[in-house]
């Protein structure tokens, strides 16, 4: 076991670091820490640059615009981009969910049509999975798709869809056979968000900003050629999407947590309570050490999972704990930051410390244990699928 980069990996990392430094937007590192919705313009420009430099879709087949590179390169990419706090690629959903799903289950025509524009950022994707009545119990979803000639007619409502407000396409899970048992009778569709009958409404969350959206489908026509996999066989396609959503998160989350920890150290050195630096308070010091330990436990577990994936080709069970551990660690870290601020922690505006940065992230962290698989569902998955305990339902 070697925790150092191989020579190829080290070269890739060094080249990437240099490229990022030379290509970040002007004045990017001096910008105010503005939480909330991503800067769409910056993201689109950045996506194009990444694509042109060959950094988009690193593990995707070269035939479809990818680099055919090993997973370790993708892990390095996510680490370096997060450390540099670079803009996000506008195609997070496309890169992380829609694309891998189409690669696994799509027809050749679908791969040729949809994959490259994801990488370049020309086409943006959103996800249509959760519904007000179907969250953890996704298979109980009710958005209906009824066959009419050479199209499906879709009616229903989806919720918690990020990017829907700017998306060109949607990966949509629908019910095509209401009489079948609930997991069998679902169909996975690729929906043009510019179709008649598609309505997007922003969803305001506890942080005050509308990061997510609701999508309403009123008699939306979707060509039959936009089915991914077979009709009524959409559940397994959806499972591929969710596996990738949880899988690719690992390294990006670790890097983000590392950035937050470094910011917390900076805060602790800057702030004083009753004449003493927070960084000199023994309880704060112990809390920070615990967060450092949690970060490295996450980072190393990801390496172990990556090593397993690269040697066996199949993800191992260690991967199932990454999101669960990260979400709870991030909640503890952001809360510790408020502890460091002390009585001033309630102030989140112009006269606050760091302009409301920590208040935003602490509130936002309450969603981490709910999104992309609730902690309760993840614990069920570990218990049932990893440890073989009897099903709870």
């Amino acid at each position, binding site marked *: 076991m070697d925790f150092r980069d191989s020579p190829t990996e080290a070269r890739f990392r060094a080249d990437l670091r240099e490229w990022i430094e030379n290509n970040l937007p002007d004045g990017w590192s001096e910008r105010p820490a503005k939480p909330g919705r991503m800067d769409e313009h910056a993201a689109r420009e950045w996506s194009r640059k990444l694509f042109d430099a060959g950094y988009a879709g690193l593990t995707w087949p070269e035939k479809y615009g990818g680099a055919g590179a090993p997973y370790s390169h993708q892990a390095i990419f996510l680490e370096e981009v997060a450390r540099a706090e670079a803009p996000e690629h506008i195609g997070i959903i496309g890169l992380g969910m829609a694309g891998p799903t189409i690669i696994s289950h799509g027809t050749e025509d679908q791969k040729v049509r949809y994959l490259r524009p994801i990488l370049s950022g020309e086409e943006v994707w959103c996800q249509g999975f959760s519904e007000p009545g179907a969250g953890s119990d996704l298979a109980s979803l009710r958005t209906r798709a009824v066959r009419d000639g050479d199209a499906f007619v879709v009616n229903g409502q989806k919720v918690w869809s990020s990017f829907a407000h700017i998306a060109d396409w949607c990966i949509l899970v629908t019910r095509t056979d209401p009489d079948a048992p609930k997991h069998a009778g679902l169909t996975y569709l690729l929906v043009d968000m510019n179709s008649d009958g598609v309505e997007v409404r922003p969803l305001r969350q506890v942080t005050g900003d509308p990061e997510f959206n609701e999508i309403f489908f009123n008699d939306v026509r979707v060509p039959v050629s936009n089915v991914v996999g077979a009709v009524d066989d959409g559940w397994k396609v959806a499972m591929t999407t969710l596996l990738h959503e949880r899988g690719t998160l690992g390294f990006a989350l670790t890097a983000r947590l590392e950035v937050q920890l470094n910011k917390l150290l900076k805060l602790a050195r800057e702030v004083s309570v009753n004449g003493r630096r927070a960084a000199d308070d023994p309880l704060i*010091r112990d809390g*920070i050490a615990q967060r450092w330990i949690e970060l490295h436990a996450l980072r190393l577990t990801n390496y172990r999972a990556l090593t397993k994936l690269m040697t066996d080709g199949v993800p191992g069970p260690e991967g199932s704990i990454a999101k669960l551990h990260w979400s709870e660690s991030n909640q503890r870290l952001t809360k510790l930051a408020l502890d460091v601020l002390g009585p001033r922690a309630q102030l989140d505006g112009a006269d606050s410390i760091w302009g409301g940065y920590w208040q935003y992230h602490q509130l936002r962290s309450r969603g981490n244990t709910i999104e992309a698989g609730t902690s309760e569902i993840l614990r069920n998955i570990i218990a049932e699928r990893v*440890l073989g305990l009897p099903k709870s339902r």
Partner: protein
Amino acid sequence: MLRSEARSWLESKLPSERVAEIADSGAGWDADVWAQMAALGWIGLSAPPEAGGAGMTFLEEAVLFEEFGRALFPGPFFSTVGLCLPALEAAPELCGRAAAGEITLALAWAERPGPLTLFEPGDYGTKAVRADGGWTLTGEKILVPDAGVVSHFVVAAGTAEGPGLFVAEGAGERSSTMDSTRAFGSVRFDDASAVMVAGPQEFGGLLGRIRLRAHCALALEAVGVAEAALVMAVDHSKTRSQFGRPIGAYQAVSHQVADTYMDVELARSLAYWAAWCVAEADPGAPAAVAAAKSFAAEAAVRACERSTQVHGGMGFTWEHMLHRYYKRAQWIDAFDGYGHAHRTVIADSLLP
């Protein structure tokens, strides 16, 4: 593979009934088992061939520390191999005898009223003075692991020029210890003849190396202990039924088990990384080892506590093995100070 070999050997030589027997009798070890281990080459695994060892690295030993934790090995393995081997680098003849299973050793550093830990500077009341071309030791040491079992002691003592490390034969006295598979004890020296293995120049560096290696060994042991507790919890929750269902079907039970799995894997990641850092003498080793020791020990304690809870009344009996694992987890957690004492190393490196 060393791991599977060790696991099956330990399962056959030291099944849980035998471990319980050794623990309850106060014997502290099984001399026969120890001799067989020596024959397998496990005691001197990382010692150089010239000193009777197999010339392997800490990474191979790491496997043994973890498996010995899983088996709740009763005997001076951590004491001799985990704590004392580095001190014997300067005494290859003694090292050879240890590797052959002829002698066993424990590190003796703590005194009343202090110092208590390997972190503290050596202002020792136990003194070593030159005599007849060698040295003699006088003083008393407390909190010596396996004191009642071992034949020899590696002793931290003060000399006129500063602290040094010495090896002497001794007869320790066992102290009643929560974990009776590895009881502490005390040892007195009255002009006992001793060999110096580190003088004042080498003392600090050697003690630092011993400390890093020992803490890392305990982290690996803790992973083994935690995993054993997890396996028991998983088995019990699949087989025990109440209200017509196996209790693992109830999320209040299964989620505790899932949390233990997560704890074990995170601890394992930290312990393996720390072992690599120690083997490579990586500059990041002190922080890595502090992280591993504090987290893995606490994870092992939580694993045993949750496993006890999952076992219900049975988990609270003397007869069930769990309490023995729990006491070992607590032994590890207490060694050289609980978690926050080790996390200070990390805090000091992040926020000087």
